[in-house]
């Protein structure tokens, strides 16, 4: 009996493995499926290491950055160094905590100034395994109330939106990813246009007509039209404007430092949001028509009415 040469066997295996994966791709595209079960297994296997690494590296980095660097600088005074080492270590730990407290205080201040918006603090524990896409993983998941399509921000500006959730982890598509986008407008002229990622550090404002006047340095804020982010959150600053036909080519520098994210805020609501000053405007208009209630006491989150209520 003539056996099949091993080269042909491996070629046949290669062809069948590729064929199966092409079918898998086609199935996902046709059914809009995301192979969630496999993703859940993979993320569950890797995320504990990432979570542990995040907390581990935080303490190591604090110690390395402050303690050992100082240790090298103080060689000249050997005797005093030994005496002061213990105190330095304590200072180092305190500095690390102060730095963290500073960041958390910024988050807290932001949270307090936007009390009407339900939000949740989260730590970044990992980036994407794919170098072409811009995603991060957070240490909060479904158990904390995080759901798909929730907005993610920092006090500096918007970050992106949740695209996948797991029990203890959530994946966020950063604004810089080329598949990302947000409803935005120019803060001064109030010209509305979506802002999207390009896969590079800068964003692109896509549909601003050539006739519209746009200045470099102008602020870009959210328009609220995407129903994910409240209006007037910082998106970025216009960094470059080039003429184009029919639309200008506008590059936007993101307001949040998307390349160095450690703590973020998840907007834990799927309902359209407006910030307090929007609510004030709305309620003022409503006051003039029907009620004498002060604007500050108006409900801050604009909840959509049920179909029954609309009828």
């Amino acid at each position, binding site marked *: 009996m003539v056996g099949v040469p091993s080269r042909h066997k491996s070629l046949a*295996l290669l062809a069948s493995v590729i064929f199966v994966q092409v079918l898998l*791709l*086609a199935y996902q595209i046709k059914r809009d499926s*995301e192979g969630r079960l496999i993703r859940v297994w993979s993320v569950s296997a890797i995320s504990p290491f990432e979570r542990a690494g995040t907390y581990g590296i935080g303490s190591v980095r604090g110690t390395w950055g402050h303690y050992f660097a100082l240790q090298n600088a103080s060689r000249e005074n050997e005797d005093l160094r030994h005496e002061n080492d213990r105190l330095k270590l304590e200072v180092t730990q305190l500095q690390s905590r102060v730095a963290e407290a500073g960041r958390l205080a910024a988050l807290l201040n932001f949270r307090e100034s936007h009390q009407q918006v339900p939000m949740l603090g989260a730590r970044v524990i990992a980036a994407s395994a794919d170098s072409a896409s811009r995603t991060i993983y957070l240490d909060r998941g479904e158990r904390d109330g995080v759901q798909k399509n929730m907005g993610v921000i920092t006090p500096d500006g918007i970050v992106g939106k949740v*695209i*996948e959730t797991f029990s203890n982890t959530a994946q966020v598509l950063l604004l810089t990813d080329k598949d990302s986008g947000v409803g935005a407008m120019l803060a001064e002229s109030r010209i509305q246009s979506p802002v999207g990622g390009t896969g590079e550090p800068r964003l692109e404002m896509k549909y601003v007509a050539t006739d519209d006047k746009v200045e470099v340095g102008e602020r870009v804020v959210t328009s609220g039209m995407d129903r994910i982010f409240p209006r007037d959150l910082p998106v970025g600053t216009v960094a470059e404007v080039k003429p184009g036909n029919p639309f200008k080519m506008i590059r936007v520098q993101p307001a949040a430092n998307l390349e160095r994210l450690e703590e973020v805020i998840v907007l834990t609501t799927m309902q359209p949001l407006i910030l307090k000053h929007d609510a004030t405007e709305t309620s003022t208009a409503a006051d003039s028509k029907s009620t004498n209630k002060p604007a500050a006491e108006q409900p801050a989150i604009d909840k959509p009415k049920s179909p029954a209520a609309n009828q």
Partner: protein
Amino acid sequence: MNETYDLRTAESHIEVHKFHAGAILGTLVIIFFLQAFVPVYFHRLAILDLPLLVTIYFGLSRRNPSSGLLLGMAIGLLQDSLSGPIVPLGLYGIAKTVIGYLASSIGARLDTEHPAARFSLTIVFFGIHQGILVLERRILLAQPEVWFTMHLGIAALINAVVGVLLFTLLDRLRKPS
């Protein structure tokens, strides 16, 4: 392991390397942990494709096309699944399957132990990997994708340099012959 035996007899100057059972699994866990974790703190290191380097290394070392392509498939699918819903399952799976097959086929014919050979092969495989990804995105996903940018050229060089260092490190996991 007839395949391995055939290789040894036909081309006795090329050695087939074996690894401890847990070495490959442990390497994969560490590599995927690093791939996802390091860019959080060192953003520029996102340019590295560690799963690709590992696929190339084990392909070149084990020199068995069947196990090379299966390992490539597993690594690629794991990378797909960790990259989230924007990357469909199979995108990297197909690319790394082909790379695993090619690396182990070439490894069975050429001596790939020299750093210069490893450097050159890593650049070639990086290019093929990128080419397959572009083809998949254009043909299967109907997404516009450029063939080459300067960024990709730099990425190929950096990955090749890191690959040579990583391969030397991974050589220590080989079973003594």
